[in-house]
């Protein structure tokens, strides 16, 4: 591992985003706009308060999943990944570079959404604000890691984008946003127990309702962290130096 290469990679990924201002603007602003939309759809603070935290956990995950799956697919098909792997680049350098760049983007994204939600939309957060950013960043990184992993199974950008409904939407349906998880049929509840997004949403909800950092929150954050590490390891395994 070489921190110089990891930092250079993060800078390169940010440079790429900078040259694509429309993508960057959408990644940063769309989550906030969706929060605003949601608030007016409910037209009632209590109902918004019930769903908003889940969305704050979900949106960074979603956006980073999409951006990463397409950009790593490009890296795979354009030959730049292969080239990098003939150079002194460790796989971890690449992963860290991507993770660093995208978590920066995600922090700005969440900061905007949280600022608007707290100041204008009337959302209340009982827990510490820094913890909310930590959970959001972990969610974004989880999206990044899963996006990287699925990009190995896509040959075209069309296929990569299709992984959004295939991999992400089932998690959204099962994460407790529509029906509380403990009220689902038991096999669905078990299924939701092994999906990482459920914990992201639980952690966000916990944070907005309870003062301080309880044992539940710590457990949820640990599960997200473990899922993140697992997907990073699996994702790294798909970066192959050699082809048959």
């Amino acid at each position, binding site marked *: 591992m070489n921190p*110089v*290469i990891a930092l*250079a*990679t993060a*800078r*390169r990924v940010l*440079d*790429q985003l900078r*040259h*694509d201002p429309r993508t960057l603007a959408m990644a940063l602003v769309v989550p906030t706009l969706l929060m605003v939309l949601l608030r007016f759809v409910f037209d009632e603070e209590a109902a918004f308060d019930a769903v908003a935290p889940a969305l704050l956990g979900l949106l960074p995950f979603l956006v980073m999943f999409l951006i990463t799956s397409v950009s790593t697919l490009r890296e795979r098909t*354009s*030959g*730049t990944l*292969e*080239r*990098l*792997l*003939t*150079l*002194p*680049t460790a796989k971890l350098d690449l992963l860290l570079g991507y993770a660093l760049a995208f978590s920066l983007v995600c922090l700005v994204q969440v900061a905007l959404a949280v600022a608007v939600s707290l100041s204008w939309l009337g959302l209340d957060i009982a827990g510490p604000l820094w913890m909310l950013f930590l959970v959001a960043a972990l969610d974004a990184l989880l999206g990044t890691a899963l996006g990287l992993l699925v990009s190995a199974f896509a040959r075209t950008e069309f296929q990569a984008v299709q992984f959004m409904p295939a991999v992400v939407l089932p998690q959204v349906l099962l994460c407790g946003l529509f029906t509380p998880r403990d009220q689902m049929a038991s096999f669905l509840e078990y299924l939701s127990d092994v999906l990482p997004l459920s914990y992201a949403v639980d952690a966000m909800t916990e944070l907005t309702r309870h003062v301080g950092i309880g044992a539940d929150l710590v457990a949820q954050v640990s599960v997200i962290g473990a899922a993140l590490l697992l997907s990073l390891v699996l994702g790294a395994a798909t970066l192959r*130096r*050699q*082809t*048959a």
Partner: protein
Amino acid sequence: MAVLVSGLVVRRGGREILHGIDCAVPEGSVTGLLGPSGCGKTTLLRSVMGLQRLTGGTVTVLGRPAGHRDLRRSIGYCPQTPSVYLDLTVLENIRYFASVIGAPPADADRVLDTLRLGAHRHQIVGSLSGGQRSRASLAVALLGEPKLLVLDEPTVGLDPVLRLELWDAFAEIAARGTALLVSSHVMDEAARCHELLLMRDGILLAQESPDSLRARTGTQDLEQAFLRVIREHEAQNPPAGHTTEQIPS
């Protein structure tokens, strides 16, 4: 020898691409890999870079098995398709790869000069012409001081003047002790090489210097010489089971 290939067999998708190649690339010289498109040149170069899983035989690069991690600081590679980021400028691409390799920042100017890309340094690679993109990709391979440079058809689509200058640059790099392995399907570039590898249908037909090839085949024209080598080979190994293309005289 910078590269030593022995008994190299590569099978891909159930088809044998390389049927037992033996060759060597000496240090401090330019070795040209020539042959028609589809004959296995790229597969051989990828094997040298350690990117290709081998079915049989060995490839030794600078005393280590191809793809060894210690080699990653000493080998420059330019794949056939331009492998740079289309959404970055030329300079951003070169700076990124320079920091990955650990080349000094001043190196960016040197390779931009060699490839005559100075005027385009701040242009997004995706907005450049095909030839300019290949030059940007080649510039990356020239960064640092590689002991071995593997270039896959680096001069395709380039302006003839620039092509000439590039071959001068290759000779200069070789004179500093670097081994260059350059593939091409243009015979007039063969004359610029110190050593030639002639390939066809996954078989190495000959490894020798241009002079020795001319002398052996009794012609000054390397294109003709290559044709004679092919015919000689076919006379000795009549094609079994399949018809080969007719070779015009």
